[in-house]
């Protein structure tokens, strides 16, 4: 493996790992203080349990040889990292580590939806099950040896389907199964620490360069273009969201700026290495404006998606996946894939993108539902009303986030 490529992938894996505490802060700042540690814990727990699962079986499911070559479920030949020995195995370890960071952050995204009411024990069981039963297969479809979506020509550069639609639809199912927080939507539930949310978004953006440009798997031209697109989409996402909310609500908000940047980054994720020029601006502006509008849906429809995982990740992921059907431009990046509608490729790619999205929605939504129902029937999904009121920090973790008053 070229050492320049290795250096960039090493860094990228570290950057994506760093997104997890970033996400924890981004989400944590938005919950009320009494639920803060639970939100952090749901995220960092993914950093604990997923690597264990990954080393044992998860990586094999995505990176191993395809079972029966059908492109639907991965293989078992790398279970326990078996057979990896000697320095030649280095690149495989690196690939496993880079892929692992994605498997860590995807379930972590869901935590924002179920915030403030889920038993930690339920979450502790949910995450490894979901990674094996949902993330593993969907990852195989796109990024495994002969994933069926990829084989048909569907595109997902860094995780529009595998990460954002996948986590987003799981989040939607989870909030429907879990039910609303006590008091929602009547009671005010303002963010308790927006500076944390802003810094969290900053860390996410920083890490997203590893996520998107690292998905080029080398310090190559595609990485450079993906870096550029990621930069533009985050920026335009912020501007798109802030402009629309300024016009609609009368104020440009800090939370809006942070949310818009994340929306833009989500949206460009499937496309980062497949478009050129200033296309990143289009993905960003569209995501900023549309995700802003989408987060309002929960009040109209009545599902309590605490921190708008549906509005940002599901909607942003779908948007980016479909926009790629318009903007994909093989010549701009020197790749071999169907061009999008706007670049003379007709509707072929659009159809494949839609098919991949639908399959992900159906599979992830369905299996997530089953996992949650099983957990609910055994461990129970929700904390008691009293525990919810006291706060999940005390009830689940026997801790409080802040103690500013010194009394000794």
């Amino acid at each position, binding site marked *: 493996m070229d050492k320049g490529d290795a250096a960039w992938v090493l860094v990228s894996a570290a950057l994506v790992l760093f997104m997890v505490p970033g996400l924890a802060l981004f989400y944590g700042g938005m919950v009320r203080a009494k639920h803060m540690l639970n939100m952090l814990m749901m995220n960092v727990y993914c950093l604990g349990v997923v690597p264990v699962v990954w080393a044992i079986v998860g990586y094999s499911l995505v990176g191993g040889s395809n079972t029966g070559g059908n492109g639907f479920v991965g293989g078992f030949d790398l279970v326990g990292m078996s057979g990896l020995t000697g320095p030649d195995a280095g690149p495989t370890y690196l690939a496993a580590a880079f892929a692992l960071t994605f498997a860590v952050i995807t379930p972590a995204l869901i935590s924002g939806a179920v915030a403030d009411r889920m038993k930690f024990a339920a979450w502790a069981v949910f995450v490894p099950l979901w990674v094996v039963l949902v993330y593993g297969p969907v990852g195989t479809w796109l990024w495994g040896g002969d994933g069926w979506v990829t084989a048909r020509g569907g595109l997902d550069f860094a995780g529009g389907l595998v990460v954002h639609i996948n986590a987003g639809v799981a989040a939607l199912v989870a909030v429907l199964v879990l039910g609303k927080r006590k008091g929602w939507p009547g009671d005010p539930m303002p963010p308790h620490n927006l500076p944390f949310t802003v810094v969290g978004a900053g860390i996410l953006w920083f890490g997203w360069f590893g996520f998107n440009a690292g998905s080029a798997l080398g310090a190559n031209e595609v990485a450079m273009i993906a870096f550029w697109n990621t930069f533009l989409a985050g920026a335009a996402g912020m501007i798109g969201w802030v402009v629309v909310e300024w016009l609609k609500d009368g104020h440009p908000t800090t939370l809006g700026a942070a949310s818009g940047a994340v929306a833009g980054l989500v949206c460009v994720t499937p496309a980062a290495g497949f478009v050129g020029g200033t296309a990143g601006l289009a993905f960003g502006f569209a995501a900023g404006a549309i995700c802003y509008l989408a987060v309002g849906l929960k009040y109209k429809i009545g599902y309590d998606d605490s921190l708008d995982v549906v509005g940002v990740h599901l909607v942003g992921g779908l948007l980016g996946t479909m926009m790629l059907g318009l903007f994909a431009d093989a010549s701009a990046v020197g790749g071999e894939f169907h061009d999008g509608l706007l670049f003379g490729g007709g509707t072929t790619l659009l159809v494949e993108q839609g098919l991949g999205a639908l399959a992900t929605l159906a599979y992830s939504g369905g299996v997530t539902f089953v996992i949650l129902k099983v957990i609910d029937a055994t461990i129970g999904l929700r904390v008691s009303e009293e525990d919810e009121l006291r706060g999940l920090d005390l009830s689940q973790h*026997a801790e409080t986030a802040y103690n500013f008053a010194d009394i000794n």
Partner: protein
Amino acid sequence: MQKLITAIIKPFKLDDVKAALKEIGVQGLTVSEVQGFGRQGGHTEVYRGAEYQVDFVPKIRVECVVADGDAERVVDAISAAAQTGKIGDGKIWITAVERIVRIRTGELGDDAL
């Protein structure tokens, strides 16, 4: 003469109490965060295996100066709104105010409310 009504209530009841007072015509009140110790008992926290007993429970103190004749009604309103029936609902007490001034205008007594 006016009365100062002081109520110690559960934090999540503040909105209800405020609404109830508004309804009976109270035009102002002052609240603060306090920690209560009483029958309700506190909780235990654990940090790296070390248990740490917290005896205090977060409460809200509501203070409201009202005209003599309104005191009864105000106490009743707070009481009704703040009650859950579970331990820790809190107390309401009344003390006598000898004089009250509205700073902005210098108005005194009931006019200052």
